[in-house]
């Protein structure tokens, strides 16, 4: 007997749902919920983390991200302009910088700056390891941001530069007043992406060592985990990262929609 096509589709869907629910039920029954709750969602351990996980760890994560992002953005714009320069040595230097710090694992950059320089050259960074670490993050982020900014500059139509130059604006004024403002609108989405990546990359500062005052979220959570042999702080740290990143990406999506309308 031939089934109607809609009937067959319904039967197929029903089977798929049934299999899915069976798996969920089986996993739920097989799981030791008491143990999971004690190890990952332990209220007592969670309460112990306050207020430091907020006032020190989250604060530092956001502060370090901002420092690395602003520093990286300033250098990034500079390197982007250098990379597009007609002057060879500027172009070569910017290209070398970008390739170097984009091509190397960020953690290796941090090792070299935080350990390589002091041990190899006897150079002590004023402000301690955290300053070295932040400098490393700035270098890494500047390389990525330079490429984003360069793509933004190049996405601005050539006619814009020609119109500006025809009005007697110098190359510098043209860049600052005409090209960059338009380029920045184009690069808002990829720059948000960089910000989120950088927020997570501050966890790499783990490797440069820290005092209580300079712990960021991941370091803080890892240390707290070993104190009680309990993983609740890791889950808390994870949630706190999301508390920052999700509203941020939503806000930027909203901003993009608003700007698209204005055009």
């Amino acid at each position: 007997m031939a089934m109607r096509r809609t009937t067959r589709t319904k039967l197929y869907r029903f089977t798929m749902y049934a299999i899915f629910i069976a798996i969920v039920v089986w996993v739920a029954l097989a799981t030791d919920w008491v143990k999971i709750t004690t190890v990952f969602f332990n209220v007592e351990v969670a309460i112990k983390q306050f207020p430091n996980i907020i006032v020190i760890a989250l604060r530092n994560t956001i502060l370090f991200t901002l420092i690395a992002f602003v520093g990286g953005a300033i250098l990034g714009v500079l390197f982007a302009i250098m990379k597009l320069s007609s002057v060879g040595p500027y172009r070569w230097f910017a290209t070398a910088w970008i390739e170097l710090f984009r091509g190397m694992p960020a953690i290796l950059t941090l090792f070299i700056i935080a350990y390589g320089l002091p041990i190899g050259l006897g150079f002590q960074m004023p402000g301690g390891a955290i300053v070295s670490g932040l400098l490393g993050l700035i270098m890494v982020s500047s390389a990525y941001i330079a490429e984003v900014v360069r793509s933004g500059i190049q996405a601005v139509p050539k006619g814009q530069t020609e119109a500006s130059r025809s009005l007697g604006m110098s190359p510098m004024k043209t860049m600052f007043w005409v090209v960059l403002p338009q380029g920045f609108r184009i690069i808002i989405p990829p720059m948000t992406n960089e910000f989120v990546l950088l927020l997570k990359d501050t966890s790499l500062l783990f490797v440069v060592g820290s005092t209580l005052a300079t712990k960021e979220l991941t370091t803080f959570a890892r240390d707290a985990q070993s104190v009680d042999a309990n993983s609740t702080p890791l889950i808390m740290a994870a949630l706190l990262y999301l508390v920052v990143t999700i509203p941020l990406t939503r806000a930027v999506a909203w901003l993009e929609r608003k700007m698209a309308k204005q055009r």
Partner: protein
Amino acid sequence: MSTDLIDVQAPAIEVRGLFKSFGDNEVLKGIDLTVTPGEVVCVIGPSGSGKSTLLRSVNLLEEPTGGSIIIEGIDVTDPDVDIDRVRTRIGMVFQSFNLFPHLDVLGNLTLAQRRVLKRSKAEADEIAHEMLARVGLSEKADAFPGHLSGGQQQRVAIARALCMNPDMMLFDEPTSALDPELVGEVLQVMRTLADEGMTMLVVTHEMGFAREVSSRLIFIDGGVIVEEGDPREVLANPQHPRTQDFLSRVL
């Protein structure tokens, strides 16, 4: 010709033996051209003839490979010349308008006034409003370019150039990107400018405009000036076979 009357002054534009190549492609092959103050010169020719390149060479948007460009007595091909200063005296209008999309109309009109001529905001605003009135768009000062029609955008672009108080204007196919019904409003603004005595060099396909407004018509083909003269005569009675061939196809 009527232009003889102002012969005592230096030419607004003097092009001497201009050559321009893009790689192996030689676009301009020795152009000589003089535009005296108050003259309206129209340049016509088939696409790829080099007419836009000629116009863009005048304010050095294209760097000549040979020859010289002399603007009001100053050789701008001399590397020591401050080209930005000379450019403030040459208004340029593009086929694709090239308004700054991130600025409103007033912002478009005041940017270079303030950053280049160092005018105060109040002064720049006043001049901007005056020029907007000249192109008939006083009510659009706060609009963004994206909200204007093509014809309005081009008139704003003309106003933007006028805000610098240029001695001459270059038009690079100013109506070619416009819908047919919007061409008239732009030509009308240009016609008024010409009547007021503005020195103009216009690359165009609008033969009617060339016939009625220009004081001289130049036909370019293959990177050289093939024929030039009084627009009515050239259009009605072209001497050179290439001019005849071109006009038979466009008229």
